[in-house]
């Protein structure tokens, strides 16, 4: 699906812009990414900030490539420091080595020890001085000019993107930008570094974040109502939909809390309007009671959880994949639901669209597990196609005789009476009920509904989209969600050394089909299960549901640092050397 089938970048360049919050590193990063996209490159920009809302430390980490880029690289080719203020916060995050180049404002003095110790080459460049010479410019724009020149970005593309970003700041500024950029470009002539990217192959590109991608997928699937409560890092989904839903005849309500958000969505969906809410871990915790209600009342609904570091309020601005257990099991009683995970930013569009379709078709809540890395990274990608998945609910026709809202059927899906339709009036209830919807505490009624609700999910034909399966070999790598991008690159590196690896990344996390899993794992004698959680939630979940090869290892690391391809490749190589008994 989408970027999933594309090969990992073989020609990419990684850079980081760091500075104190407000210095404009995110703006500079975005300008560079946008300019690169306009020039025909692919790229990804991840954001790293501390917990404070404004101020503090900030890093824009970019990777630009001639082929699609899905994850940050292990190391940084070029580090640009607007100031060294809080640079030490990034010592864990930005790996420099003797091949790296560091550019820092000449007014800032010597780099911190972790930078000098790395052996990277350091240049002091007149960033703030040049900015002062072109009044109206700030050092971040000078940095854009320097990086653009080093990488070989087209001058016009840079100028255009800056103009677009800074519109409203007056035409006078355009001249300043032009001369400022030219000045910073001439400044680079004294720098000795080989950072040039190969020429791009221009073709149509989309530039968007994972959060925007989720919004687009929701609209394509047919969502027309959203109720949500702000929470980092999901808020941009809400903000994007607030503007876009009214354009397609829907609306968004800012609810008083997450309990209200999900219950408002249940109300809208009960009324026949496909609904979605977006939240992050703490919000999902508040929603679990209503999630069970949606299961019991068979109300379609999509809940997007943009995962962040946990437990509790954890690390709001950084990524983790540790909400898997609550997404799969969170609710009292047996409450089977759909859980899906996009495996890249482009796939956020596709998976969310699929989630809407499945939720509606199966009359069940669907939880979509995105994360901060996907949600808040911005990327240039090949435009994801509109798939043939549109909300389609089995509705009761008007004046139906003997309507049974929860009547069993061969596929376990019932007809839903939609308010406004005569003849199918009924009262939905979270109480155990009869097929007619009448509350019942009788064991047989209870069991029938439990059976039917599980069966409708397990019997459905999910087609080939439940997982992405690539490559072949007796060495296997099983992963899910955003970690897939780093895993794919790790596999490519190991395969480049002559090994054969099969990569399986799950898009459908629940229900999990043990027969299908067994089939894709056939012939694999060593398996590595990779995830970004401290408690190996994915590994344990798989072991509870499926038969895994006897020689299976878990690589589970918590956030907030992204799992890098090098870390996964190293674990694969160790596994390859192990003796299979």
């Amino acid at each position: 699906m989408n970027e999933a089938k594309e090969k990992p970048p073989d020609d990419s360049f990684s850079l980081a812009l760091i500075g104190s919050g407000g210095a404009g590193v995110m703006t500079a990063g975005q300008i560079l990414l946008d300019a690169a996209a306009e020039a025909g490159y692919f790229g990804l920009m991840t954001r790293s900030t501390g917990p404070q809302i404004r101020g503090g430390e900030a890093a824009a980490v970019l990777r630009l490539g001639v082929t699609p880029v899905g994850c940050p690289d292990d190391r940084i080719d070029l580090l640009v420091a607007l100031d060294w203020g809080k640079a030490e916060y990034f010592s864990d995050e930005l790996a420099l080595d003797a091949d790296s180049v560091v550019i820092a404002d000449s007014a800032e003095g010597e780099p911190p020890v972790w930078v000098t110790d790395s052996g990277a080459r350091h240049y002091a460049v007149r960033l703030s001085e040049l900015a002062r010479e072109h009044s109206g410019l700030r050092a971040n724009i000078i940095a854009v000019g320097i990086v653009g020149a080093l990488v070989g970005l087209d001058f016009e593309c840079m100028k255009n993107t800056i103009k677009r970003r800074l519109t409203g700041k007056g035409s006078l500024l355009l001249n300043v930008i032009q001369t400022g950029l030219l000045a910073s470009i001439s400044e680079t002539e004294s720098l000795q570094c080989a950072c040039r990217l190969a020429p791009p192959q221009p073709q149509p590109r989309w530039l968007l974040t994972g959060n925007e991608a989720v919004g687009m997928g929701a609209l394509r699937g047919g969502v027309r109502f959203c109720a949500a409560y702000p929470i980092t890092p999901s808020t941009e989904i809400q903000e994007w939909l607030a503007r876009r839903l009214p354009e397609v005849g829907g609306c968004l309500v800012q609810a008083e809390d997450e309990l209200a958000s999900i219950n408002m969505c249940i109300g809208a969906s009960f009324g026949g309007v496909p609904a979605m809410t977006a939240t992050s871990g703490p919000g999902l915790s508040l929603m679990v009671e209503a999630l069970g209600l949606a299961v019991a009342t068979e109300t379609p609904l999509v809940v997007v959880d943009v995962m962040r570091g946990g437990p509790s309020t954890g690390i709001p601005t950084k990524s983790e994949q540790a909400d898997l257990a609550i997404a799969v099991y969170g609710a009292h009683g047996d409450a089977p639901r759909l859980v899906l995970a996009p495996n890249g930013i482009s796939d956020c569009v596709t998976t969310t669209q699929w989630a809407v379709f499945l939720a509606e078709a199966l009359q069940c809540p669907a939880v979509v597990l995105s994360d901060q890395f996907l949600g808040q990274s911005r990327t240039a990608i090949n435009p994801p196609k509109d798939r043939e998945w549109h909300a389609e609910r089995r509705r009761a026709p008007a004046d139906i005789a003997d309507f049974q809202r929860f009547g069993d059927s061969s596929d376990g899906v019932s007809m839903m009476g939609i308010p406004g339709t005569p003849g199918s009036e009924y009262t939905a209830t979270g109480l155990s009920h009869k097929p007619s919807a009448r509350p019942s505490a009788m064991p047989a009624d209870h069991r029938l509904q439990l059976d039917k609700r599980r069966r409708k999910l397990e019997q459905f034909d999910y087609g080939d989209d439940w997982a992405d399966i690539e490559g072949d070999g007796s060495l296997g790598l099983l992963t899910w969600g955003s970690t897939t991008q780093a895993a794919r690159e790790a596999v490519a590196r190991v395969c480049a050394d002559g090994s054969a690896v099969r990569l399986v990344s799950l898009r459908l996390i629940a229900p999990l089909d043990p027969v299908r899993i067994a089939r894709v794992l056939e012939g694999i004698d060593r398996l590595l299960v990779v995830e970004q959680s401290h408690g190996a939630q994915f590994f344990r979940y798989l072991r509870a549901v499926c038969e895994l090869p006897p020689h299976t290892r878990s690589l589970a690391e918590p956030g907030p640092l992204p799992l890098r391809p090098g870390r996964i490749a190293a674990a694969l190589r160790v596994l390859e050397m192990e003796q299979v008994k």
Partner: protein
Amino acid sequence: MSKEHHVKPRALAHKDYKSSYKPVWCAGCGDFGVLNALTKSLAALEIPTEQVALISGIGCSSRLPAYTRAYGFHGVHGRALPVAAGLAISRPELTVIAVGGDGDGFSIGGNHFIHACRRNANFSYLVMDNAVYGMTKGQASPTTESDWTGSKLAPQGTHQPPFQPLEMALAAGAPFIARAFSNAPNELAQIIREAIEFPGFAFVQILSPCVTFRPEQLNWKKQVHEAFTPTADKREAYLKLLDDDGIGTGILYRAPRPCFQPDNSVPQSLEAIAASFEVE
């Protein structure tokens, strides 16, 4: 959000709005009176059964939707108001009515109550207030008197002043506020009717005795009295509440203001929205 008007050719009698289910309520429970008055009001307004949606949380009173012939949603404890808001906002042509108890609405659902008053989506909210948790067998609710010692959970009394639903609704911005008594069928039906017809959030506190855990509430029949005539003057409404003994009935406040409704934007196709991601 499609309009699906479907008007029945024949007039419906109030029993046509009742389902075949026999209520689980104790004989003599005040909630029977509310069910009767509600179905009477719906019949008087000639709203087709399929255009009505009754939304509730959990409690004895929240069982009411299943006893009607209409669409109904019996959800989780305290969350009737957001379900009703989601439905009313996304399907504005329906007649949406939230119903439930004082525990459901003012305790676990208290935050939603405040914000439903502020938001002013177009639906009505009928609270069957018996100043007790009936379904969990007789604990104090937010509206229980502070010296009531009848509960095993607060055997010395609650030592908290009772929650004031009308004052709270007025302060939070509800545009229609009334109190009624479940055993005064005509007045109750009339108030419910006006609440349903009111364009916006209409809140009705209905004194509805719990004969099992608060049998003394049977005396309400002798005590309730007409206390309010509708005003649109907030100051006047506040002054009335300062003299209120909690069992005066009538419409206290009626001051329509614009309903919460989604903004209209310039329509766009999905293709046009997708095109906004294209690199220029």
